[in-house]
């Protein structure tokens, strides 16, 4: 038994074995941050890398994330006592007027897998709701999605609300009709064409320690 086994179980989507593997490490007295960083999050970094290279399919990536999450639940009660902390809080949602959420859900799951705390506001989210959630949770990042060209202006409104109020929260956007040029136009902090790119983007905007 080792942290490597945890790492492997996640990369092999063995969601039924992960709880026992993590518990065994905890019982053996392995450092919690070692289990978290090299086992759970390290495994998801590897999964994200393989996904980005086109070696993994979405359902496999999601199964890995689910496996990781089950392992995380085992050590969650112990985290408060250790010196580990989450990578950052992300507010995510599909903008007002838009009910399409599969891409948004994908990004949320991948960010969670990468160690971020996710607050998912769902679909048809008012610009004000992004602002309120960012403020209340002192979120590091707001991620907005739109599939319809007609709903894209709602992104601009939300960016403006948060920037005008001087919140330090970074704003990123995505969705089929969205482009880097549009992100630049509305002064968003970043754009990604796909979910793995969104994780990279989040990491670059919220550097860990």
């Amino acid at each position: 038994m080792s942290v490597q086994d945890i790492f492997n179980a996640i990369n092999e989507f063995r969601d039924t074995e992960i709880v026992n593997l993590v518990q065994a490490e905890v019982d053996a007295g392995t450092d919690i941050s070692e289990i978290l960083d090299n086992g759970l999050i390290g495994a998801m970094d590897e999964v994200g890398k393989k996904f980005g290279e086109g070696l993994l399919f979405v359902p496999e990536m999601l199964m890995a994330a689910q496996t990781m999450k089950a392992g995380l639940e085992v050590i969650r009660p112990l985290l408060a006592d250790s010196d580990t902390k989450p990578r950052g809080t992300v507010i995510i949602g599909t903008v007002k007027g838009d009910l399409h959420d599969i891409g948004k859900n994908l990004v949320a799951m991948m960010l969670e897998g990468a160690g971020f705390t996710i607050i998912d506001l769902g679909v048809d989210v008012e610009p004000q709701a992004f602002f309120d959630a960012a403020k209340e949770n002192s979120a590091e990042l707001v991620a907005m999605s739109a599939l319809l060209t007609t709903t894209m202006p709602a992104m601009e409104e939300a960016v403006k609300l948060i920037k005008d109020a001087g919140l330090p929260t970074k704003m990123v956007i995505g969705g089929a009709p969205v482009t880097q040029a549009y992100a630049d136009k509305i002064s968003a902090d970043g754009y990604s064409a796909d979910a793995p790119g969104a994780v990279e983007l989040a990491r670059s905007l919220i550097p860990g320690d």
Partner: protein
Amino acid sequence: MKLGLNFLSEDEKQRIHKDSIKILSEVGVKFMSDKALKVLADNGAKVDKDSRVALIPEEMVTQALSTAPNAFVLGARNPEFDFQMPSSYTGYTLDGAATFAIDFETGERRNALTSDMIASLKIFEELPLGTVVWPNVHCDDMDQGNYNEVRPSFVSLINSSKHIQNELHRPEEVPFMIEGLSAILGSEDAVKERKIFSVCYCTIPPLTHDGEMCDTYLELAKFHVPILPYPMPAAGSTGPASLYSDIAVANAESLSALVLFQMAVPGTPIIYGHAAGITNFRLGTFIEGAPETTLINGALGEMAHFYNLPNTQGGCLSDAKVAGPQAIMEKALGTLPLVLSGVDVINGIGEVDASQLLILEQIIVDNEIALMCKRIKDGINVSDAKDYYNDVAQVGAGGHFLMQPSTMKECRSDEFFQPELCDRNTFEQWAELGNPNIYGKAREKVKEILAGPQKNPLPDDVIGKLEEIQRKADEALSH
């Protein structure tokens, strides 16, 4: 005989129908519109107010199928382009709505503009099988502040005399749309009668109906505007991970729209449509140009025949990022089986990158694919008229048929399709011509059409009226 093709056996159609009924009556469909929920509850659906899910029993489907018209005409501003549904041949929709276009002059991929749409409509007007106009791009130069769907609809009506099909998004857009159609046709009664405008209704898979759009269409149904329900579940993400069950879900979504609009306004013309697809498992995105897409939408076209309803199916589509071999391969393979199975209208001319990129030359290329598919569909005419035994007897063994009167008659007839783009020169001729390729020839054709006059223009006074109605709409509908 004309060529045929079956995607499903009779038993399989029955099975899918039963599956869809089970989905409707036991899983149910979510409606974001209060009006829709009321219509459904009043007509026998069991509605859960909290979840907004309506359980639709089989009797309601049977009832809806009995009031939906089995045939109607999609009218066109120019009556020569009226399209009878069901149709004896397959017509095509100008694909939409792309965010991007290839600039015809510079070749640059940029945001699409109104001028791109107008150019597309001018080209589409010339296509013999081009039947239904979708405003094919989202025009970046239309003011976003007071954007409304009346605008692309009016631009289409002004620049094309074929049938126009668009989406409307807000109930407040309806009076302006009807006023515009009345200005063209002379009266509101003529709007109901001629049906020169229809709407596409995308459900949100799995099994959800939008609120505002639904309210809008309940309003439009009062003017007998034909509605094309257009579910797009992607097998493996927004639909279940087998073609079979993805078909059952898409079929259930279309039936749920059919039921809603028949219960609201019995007799509403329904075009039974689908643009279902599959999931790109590498990225989670929607795939349009896959062999499975053809199987799914071909099967759903057969479900339309099963219900005796006219239909439109997604078909001439591609995921290629540029004009070229992938676009042609995917579009040709995706179109032919649907044509052979007898789909009334195939949606997808002129765009690639999963309908996100307009390329003017592609409109001409797709036209040639459509014409070739039609020739194959028309099949082999084994009749006395084509029985040239006497020629065989006359020429006998050896010799040739080039001088026979029948050859003279047939060489320019429908018996032999003559391509405009595909090259049939000798190598030397082809080299002499500068190695022309399909897209180069299509480009020349586009230039020629764009340089010519606009066909079938609207009278200036009617255009003036439409512009005035548009001004009022922009003012009233500003966000």
